[in-house]
């Protein structure tokens, strides 16, 4: 079983994010970057599938700058066999990035391509489906349960208010949702070996952006909460405020 996992380096969700001076991007100074949390589920699932199959390989691919090597090494430390850095900048919209990834994947052997369902930085949720389209692969997104039996895949998808179960034959593409598994911590052995594992660098060039960012805005400042009172006595006033002031009921 050969599995390719596409991953992205993103700011830690707990980082304090500020607008950059140009007003078009995020100030990365002092921001801690991590492997995109949804990609962690994808990496974990790939490792589990490989372990269950008893053979095969797991590779990770990312499109990004030199600093993305850190992200690739995290995946290597988790147990991934090899990594590929496509040197170039991702596009604002998903398509440019998807084109670069699809181009790189096309030349490689694989049975399954895994993604996280979204990158938590720009939250586009586009790239997995676009890569599947470009490669002509069956695609299941927002997957919370996965079974691979020989070449047959059964995937449980999260849909509004319930679940949907889909089947397809390999090769195919899966985008992982939270709940798919519990990602492992990188092992110490993995950490020590991460640098010794192959990390291929490809000059991919920057992805074409078909969208232009014209402004980035901070979320509105949240006003301080109010304590209306305590116990049952406070309920009428709470309801009044929710109806007349907050206008939510």
């Amino acid at each position: 079983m050969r599995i390719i996992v596409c991953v992205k380096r993103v700011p830690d969700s707990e980082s304090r994010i500020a607008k950059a001076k140009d007003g078009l991007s995020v100030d990365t100074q002092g921001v801690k970057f991590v492997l995109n949390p949804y990609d962690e589920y994808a990496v974990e699932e790939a490792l589990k599938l490989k372990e269950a199959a008893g053979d095969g390989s797991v590779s990770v691919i990312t499109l990004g700058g030199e600093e993305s090597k850190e992200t690739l090494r995290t995946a290597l430390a988790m147990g991934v066999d090899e990594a590929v850095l496509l040197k170039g900048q991702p596009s604002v919209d998903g398509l440019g990035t998807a084109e670069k990834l699809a181009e790189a994947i096309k030349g490689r052997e694989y049975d399954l391509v895994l993604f996280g369902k979204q990158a938590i930085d720009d939250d586009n949720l586009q790239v997995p489906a676009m890569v599947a389209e470009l490669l002509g692969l069956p695609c299941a997104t927002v997957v919370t349960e996965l079974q691979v039996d020989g070449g047959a895949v059964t995937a449980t998808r999260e849909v509004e208010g319930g679940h949907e179960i889909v089947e397809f034959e390999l090769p195919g593409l899966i985008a992982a949702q939270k709940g798919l598994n519990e990602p492992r911590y990188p092992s110490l052995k993995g950490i020590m070996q991460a640098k010794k594992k192959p990390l291929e660098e490809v000059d991919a060039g920057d992805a074409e952006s078909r969208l232009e960012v014209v402004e980035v805005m901070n979320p509105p400042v949240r006003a301080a909460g109010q304590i209306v009172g305590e116990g049952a006595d406070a309920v009428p006033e709470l309801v009044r405020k929710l109806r007349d002031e907050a206008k939510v009921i």
Partner: protein
Amino acid sequence: MHGLTSSVDDNYLSDEHRMLRDMVREFADNEIAPVAREFDREGKFPWGNVAKMAELGLFGIPWPEEYDGAGMDVLASALVSEELAKVCPSHAITVGATISLAASPIYYFGNEEQKQRYLTKLARGEVLGAFGLTEPEAGSDAQGTQTRAEEKSDHWVLNGTKIFITNGGVGEIFVATAVTGRRSNGQKEISSFILTKETRDLEEALAVGTGHAVDLEYTPGFTHGKKEDKLGWRASDTTELIFEDAIVPKENMLGERGHGFKNFMQTLDGGRIGMAAHLLGIAEGALEQTLKFTSERRQFNTRICDFQGIRFEIADWLTRIEAGKHLTYHAANLRQAGEPHSKEAAMAKLYCSELANWATVKAVQFHGAYGYTTEYRVERLMRDAKIGEIGEGTSEVQRMVIARHLLGPETTPEKEDA
């Protein structure tokens, strides 16, 4: 909140260090943070998490792979202490004492057979370890040791008591000092021994699958005594050790006869680096909590963190943390390189212990009444910080060590007589 980043890290840390740090950070947030308050309140030892930390390999960080360690270095194990202590200092010292107080003297002074027999078990986290130096009459003055070892044909007989021993009850492998005779100048000859006993918490250890070794031959006449109820480090085990005609085979002397004092001084140098990192972690953990709280809490229609009185203190806080990092990581690298480092270790520990105490008092202050309740982590960190100025040499003792590097040994009338 992971907001704290430091360019000091970029200066000292390799990619492996960073991955280790991030892994431990995630582990501490996921597995330790949710239970730390309860273990502190109950004064309960966190066996479940000990098993998980053993599985991750945290007990073997600096030891070579041939002894079942991770093959990392002193700085790496300092980082583990720092990250664990941000969330729960009791967890941090459980690992820290096993590595830098029990395994370390075996690694540095033990022979190959001792390393294979004892170090490997500690490195795997199969059992916990402890270091017994302090006695009722020998605190800061460790040379006041009264535990005696009497030489017999093929073994030693130990009698005495050690007190305040971290992992004393829970552990199974121990390094302890005892007086083995007198030198020609009348001074005590102190040597170290490796001893073993069954963990006090056998049931818990068996339940979690770590903490008890079936193939250790226990030292007859050696057992644990009373467990302390403490201000802080409440989920860490601090217990008395009792030697009653304890029979220790000759081959369990650790290092050369009469080198006990010198060897434990060197062991403590390493322990102090771990403690410095631990205390740094407390100061950082308290700052992270305080940044979060003061940017959410509003008074006078203003976020608390927007008051200049708070900002200036927070600025000092981060400045001191970065200074503490330089001191600590520098000392760790000196030790790793085999360079002299006892002054640097003492400075790092002194500085970071005062920092942790200052920082946690501020943290509670800036949380107001909320910080005074157990609902928030900072009151626990404040109680946990205090040990930093006492354990592994009090702050006064660190100052003595540092001053000796400038002025040489103190000459006092008593010393001249001796």
